[in-house]
Each structure stands twice: as structure tokens, then as C-alpha cells.
């Protein structure tokens, strides 16, 4: 059962990490857009 949990956690950690990278990229681009507007 531990291996099943490990696979489950690994899957969602990988997807979560990628989504976190996207959110960070989005925040950065938003800041750049605001600095362009000024």
C-alpha cells in the first residue's frame, strides 16, 4: 500500500510543481506588463 501512496504522491507532486512554475511565470509576466504600462 505504501508504494501505491508513493506513486500517488509522486504523480501529484510532479503536476503541482509544474503548475507552480506556470503560476510563477504568470506573475512575472504580469509584473512586466504593468511596468510596460507605466
Amino acid at each position, binding site marked *: *500500500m505504501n*508504494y*501505491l501512496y508513493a*506513486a*500517488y504522491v*509522486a504523480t501529484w507532486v*510532479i503536476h503541482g510543481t509544474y503548475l507552480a512554475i506556470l503560476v510563477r511565470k504568470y506573475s512575472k509576466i504580469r509584473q*512586466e506588463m504593468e511596468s*510596460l504600462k507605466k
Partner: protein
Amino acid sequence: MGDVQRIFYYHVPSAWTAFLLFLINFVASVVFLIRRDTKADILALVTAEVGVVFCTVVMATGPIWARPVWGIWWAPTDIRLNSTLVLWLIYVSYLVLRRFSTSSKTASLAAALAVFGALDVPLVYFSIWFFRTQHPSPVIGGGGYLYPAMARALLINWAAFLCLAWLVCWTRYRLEVVTREVEEAQALESLLEGSR
């Protein structure tokens, strides 16, 4: 196998989704090489990136399943395992190239790499059909059999993973379009400042 068998419902749909994304990446790369279409270039980048995420899931869940079932994390001589690792490395190098290359020909070089990289996808998929491997036989086609209830659960999971992949690809596509627009605006702004 017990509960460990359930890893199959993550592992297989992730692999199929990654293969599909790499196939789209291949088509988009060919279209870009022929027409120099920016949309095709962005689609190629996005599908490679999301494909690598799904392929990473495959690479992580496979050994976690193998350890209790085979007694080892990795079979060093297994063609399915090694060709999947090569596939993952090819697309990681594709992303590294796109991220760090400053050449004006980066998109073309990456597209050419993607075309060659895609050749590994059928090798990975059909390796368990044509070679004797430690990896289990194909569950659909290739003489494999799956109980209908398991096949239903597998297909539902794949549909869910496809929805997730589509949502992430669409979000990433929009983000890349905006990123390129901002980069163009910044370049224009610095040009205007330089001319003043």
C-alpha cells in the same frame, strides 16, 4: 499484485497522454519547418513541455510499481524502460535548447530535434510487441487482455488525464502568446528609448 496494481491507472494513461502530446509536437514542428508559422512553434513548445511532465510521471511511477513486483527499481537491459528514458532525455534536451539558446535559429533547431525525437515514440510503444522485455505485455492490442471493468477504469482515467493535459496546454499556450507579446513590446520600447 494487490493494491500496487492500481499504479497502472496512473502510469498507463500518463504514458498514452505523453505519447499523444509528443505526436502533436511532431506535427507542429513539421508545420513550423514548412510554413514558419509562429502558432505551430508555440504549440510545439507547449506540447513538449506538458509531454515531459506526463513522461516524468511515467518515469516516477514505473519504478515505484517495479520495486514490489519485480524486486528491483529498474531493469538495466529492458528496451521499453531504456527507450522511454531516452525519449524523456530527448524532450528535456529540447526544452533546455529552447530555454537557453539565444540563436535566431533556435525554433528551427528545436523543430528539427523534435522531428528526430518523435522517431523514438513508436520504438517505445511497440518495443513490448516486438521484443522480449521485463515490462508487462500490452494491455490493449498486441495479444494482451484486460478485464472489462479494468479497461473502463483505465479509459476513464485516460479521459481525465487528457482533460488535464488540454487545460494545462491551453493555459500554457495563452501564457506563451502573452510572453512573446510582452517581449516584443519591451524590445520596441528599448528601441524607442535608444532613438531618443
